[in-house]
């Protein structure tokens, strides 16, 4: 049982470390797999400032390598993940995090789409309400005497055969 577990752990580590397109070089890695896993997870959140849309975990830039080593050094030194994030944000600004933090300057970024959605819902609600209000009186209005008479004639026609239909004279009922 333990042998299986060991084999599974070994495979997980080996497969984890040999994933596709790794920028992390073997000589950078920490010997403790748990710490290395933390470093990998944290590196994936940190922007490479040279290539900007890659994380330092993905990037082959030499600055990214320096930052990967710095992350690992600080992990070994016992710093928390948040402590390392704070260290980098202090020096490079919040831009260094691929996921922007929620604060006063990013409220529009985070909640803008929600606000636009809510405005859209309010707009649509108002639109349909208006339409229902202006449409409703017409739909429920009583027919006047003329219209009643026309309906009676039409119903009468339908009951007594359909000569008018066969003749194609759809307008017959309209004749006074």
């Amino acid at each position, binding site marked *: 049982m333990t042998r299986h577990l060991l084999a599974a752990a070994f495979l997980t580590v080996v497969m984890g470390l040999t994933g596709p397109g790794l920028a992390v070089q073997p000589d950078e890695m920490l010997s403790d797999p748990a710490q290395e896993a933390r470093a990998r997870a944290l590196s994936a959140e940190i922007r490479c400032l040279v290539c900007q849309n890659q994380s330092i975990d993905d990037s082959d830039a030499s600055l990214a390598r320096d930052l990967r080593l710095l992350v690992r050094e600080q992990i070994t030194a016992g710093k928390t993940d948040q402590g390392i994030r704070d260290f980098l944000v202090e*020096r490079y*600004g919040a831009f260094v995090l691929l996921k922007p933090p929620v604060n006063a300057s990013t409220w529009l970024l985070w909640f803008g789409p929600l606000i636009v959605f809510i405005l859209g819902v309010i707009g649509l609600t108002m639109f349909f309400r208006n339409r229902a209000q202006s449409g409703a009186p017409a739909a429920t209005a009583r027919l006047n005497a003329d219209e009643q008479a026309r309906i009676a004639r039409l119903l009468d026609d339908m009951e007594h055969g359909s000569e008018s239909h066969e003749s194609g004279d759809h307008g017959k009922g309209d004749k006074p």
Partner: protein
Amino acid sequence: MKRLLFIAPLVLFLGIAGYLGFGLTRDSSILPSTLIDKPAPTFDLEALIPDGKGLKTDDLKGRVALVNVFASWCVPCRAEHPIWMRVATQEKIPIYGLNWKDKRSDAIAWLEELGDPYERIGFDPDHKGGVEWGVYGAPETYVIDRDGRVRFKYVGPVFSETLNETILPLVRKLQETP
């Protein structure tokens, strides 16, 4: 009131288009420094040149100075280098070098070839000093005031225009304020 509602989408569109259009005029590769108006970071770098002077935080106090991040492998650094030679001979501003991610022998050869405008040069082969400054490329240039605070950062090579219109006026202003 109804009519106002009809133009609301147009106003909203123009607002968003204007905002995003303004965003396009900004160069996203230039990051604002988090150090502006803050004390220079804590760092201590050994001298690049064996019998020269190194660079550390306390060296930045007392005079208005420039800190220039450079490397021998950096082509724009070579392009801006004559500017620093000119400042070193014509202006009363110390220039401190931060030799970033370089090989010592390469950097020394580079200075021997082009001239050395720096009063002090800190040697930073592994980004230990650079990370404190938020350096993400070379060249970068900082203006430091008399109290050792960072007042300005310029990313990319400095040419006459930036020097004469931005850096020197700021330096003069800082030198004049007691």
